[in-house]
């Protein structure tokens, strides 16, 4: 579907609230009984961290749901404004702690845009390799967590973590840390992988489709899973675009907007891959899109390993110490595993950024959580939340 399908709906969106749409249902009337307000979180098994939802229930049905944030507000932006540009790089690891490589890259991208720093070819390829490996980690784990919310006894999650451990091992061999890689630099990458590392990574990537097949055989056709996810948490494209949703959540609603294609940052235009699109925008589409994206990521990775050029991994003109970009501002963004991850930087010519802002996809993807959950049961709410894929480090920063 092209975007023209929902352009004519724009006029309806002027008033705030719930513009008429299939995803919103009126659920409460005088025939129902008293309402029950349940505060789910911040300590709850399926809020994926310290997220909190204050849900008002009519029986099991949700009539109101307000998210509450800030339980992991670690003042990332304030700290970054008090430290140097490079000093913030380790903090970006801890934003989205499942995908530190992508977050690193997003920050490096913004700073490079701010300072006009060039990046050598090999580093561009390495960045794509790291970002796509991160996407594999994130999506595999997300599916595991989603099934946990659906009520399995951890089994799919543990299969996903088996694969995650393999990829994390690669990251550790390369960067020295399992989760907090701190790998990207302004103008390149920190460490050049050895041929052994590349061979190991290539083997992993070649075996990954087998894991995906196994995973799908376990999960995709399961009838309980179909009944629990299809038609749950529908999101129509007009709402999704207006609410700024990005990433797989947006594409599950059928909007073709992948920054790897739209912005063509890095060397992505050189790669041959497709962008899967959902049609219904329900939880099942969001789940399947992750699986399909992993398959495309594997394709990208195979091409990247094939075409990886030699050469330096850092631009020789890049400055790490006393790095002072010219006064100005820049907004750099990329397609993170969870959606558009952007960094907005204002430089005043000093070593510290004057303003440092993270555009967190997790937070903004939660905008329509209430609309998606209305009319569904509390059991569906946790599944919908799981299918949005949030990481609290990024939501609250």
């Amino acid at each position, binding site marked *: 579907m092209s*975007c*023209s399908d929902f*352009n004519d709906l*724009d*006029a309806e*969106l*002027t*008033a*705030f*609230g719930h513009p008429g749409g299939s995803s919103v249902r009126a659920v409460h009337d005088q025939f129902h009984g008293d309402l029950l307000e349940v505060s789910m979180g911040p300590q709850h098994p399926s809020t994926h961290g310290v997220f909190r939802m204050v849900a008002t229930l009519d029986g099991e049905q949700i009539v109101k749901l307000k998210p509450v*944030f*800030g339980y992991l*507000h670690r*003042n990332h*932006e*304030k700290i970054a404004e*008090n430290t140097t540009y490079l000093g913030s790089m380790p903090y970006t690891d801890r934003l989205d702690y499942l995908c530190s490589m992508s977050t690193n890259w997003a920050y490096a991208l913004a700073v490079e*845009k*701010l*300072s*006009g720093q060039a990046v050598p070819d090999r580093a561009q390829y390495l960045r794509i390799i790291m970002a796509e490996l991160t996407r594999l980690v994130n999506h595999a784990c997300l599916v595991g967590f989603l099934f946990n919310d659906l009520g399995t006894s951890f089994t799919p999650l543990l299969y996903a973590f088996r694969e995650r451990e393999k990829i994390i091992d690669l990251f550790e061999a390369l960067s020295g840390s399992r989760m907090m890689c701190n790998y990207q630099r302004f103008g390149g990458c920190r460490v050049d992988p050895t041929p052994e590392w590349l061979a190991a990574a290539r083997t992993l990537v070649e075996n990954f489709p087998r894991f995906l097949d196994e995973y799908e055989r376990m999960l995709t056709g399961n009838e309980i899973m179909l009944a629990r996810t299809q038609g749950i948490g529908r999101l129509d494209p007009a*709402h999704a*675009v*207006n*609410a*700024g*949703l*990005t990433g797989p959540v947006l594409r599950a609603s059928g*909007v073709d*907007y992948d920054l790897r294609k*739209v912005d063509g940052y890095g060397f992505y235009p050189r790669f041959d891959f497709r962008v899967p699109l959902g049609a219904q925008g329900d939880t099942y589409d969001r789940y399947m899109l992750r699986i399909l994206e992993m398959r495309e990521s594997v394709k990208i990775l195979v091409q990247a390993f094939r075409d990886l050029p030699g050469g330096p991994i850092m631009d020789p003109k890049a400055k790490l110490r006393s790095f002072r*970009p*010219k*006064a*100005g*501002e*820049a*907004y750099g*963004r990329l397609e993170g595993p969870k959606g*558009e991850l*952007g960094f*907005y930087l*204002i*430089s005043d010519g000093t070593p510290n950024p004057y*303003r440092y*802002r993270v*555009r967190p996809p997790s*937070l*903004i993807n*939660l*905008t*329509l959580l209430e609309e998606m959950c209305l009319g569904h049961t509390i059991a569906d709410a946790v599944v919908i939340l799981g299918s949005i894929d949030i990481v609290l480090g990024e939501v*609250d*920063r």
Partner: protein
Amino acid sequence: METVQQLRDRLAARFPAARVELVLNPGVAAEHSLRLDAALGRDIALFLRDDPALRLDYCSNVTGVDWPDKEITDVVKTTVPDPAGGPPKIVEEKSVHVQPGCLEAVYHLYSMSLKHGPVVIRLRTGNRADAVTLPSLTPVWRSCDFQEREIFDLFGIVFAGHPDLRRLLMWDEFKDHPMRKDYVEPDDYEWEPTAHGAVLERAKAHQLAAVAGVVDPGQSSANPPKAAPGSTTPATTAPVKEAKP
């Protein structure tokens, strides 16, 4: 897509009453922005969203920027002719004036249907103290919802017309706006085995107090002293202790 300059001209023609300024970005990125008149901000935003050539249907990033009062030293050079007939003297007169600060909200707009962008628009408050109200653009782009709440929380900009303007990240009782440049954070760096230089510096005052014998350093966390805390049990969830093994 038209340039920011062209867009400014078109907006000026469309909204003659509004002041639309072009803010040049001197940096490499050259993402120039438009500063909109706050009073007409929402109308212009609606126009930007619905104009068929622009279709900026996606508001990606909303953020606040704090510009505190800035002291600016003006140097006025005047040439004073020497009454003695020598070469004229150049006299520098320095005068300091305070450029009043303000808060700014910056919106990054893209078009998902036409796949172009960004168009950066800015709204500016009158000052940082009392005239901090801006029109909310949440009715135009729902994605501003949480981000404007966050700006309200951290910068203190009040968005008129926002449907649910509460603090987003800090608790409701919190009084300050921590992302402002002049925010003074609470001093709770008592004992800091840390490499953060700034933190060590701030902890020093407490450490001097400790040396002076204010506290007894012999207690460790695993062995709390016998002094039981006062009646601080929670009111609602207080459990009844029935048995202690």
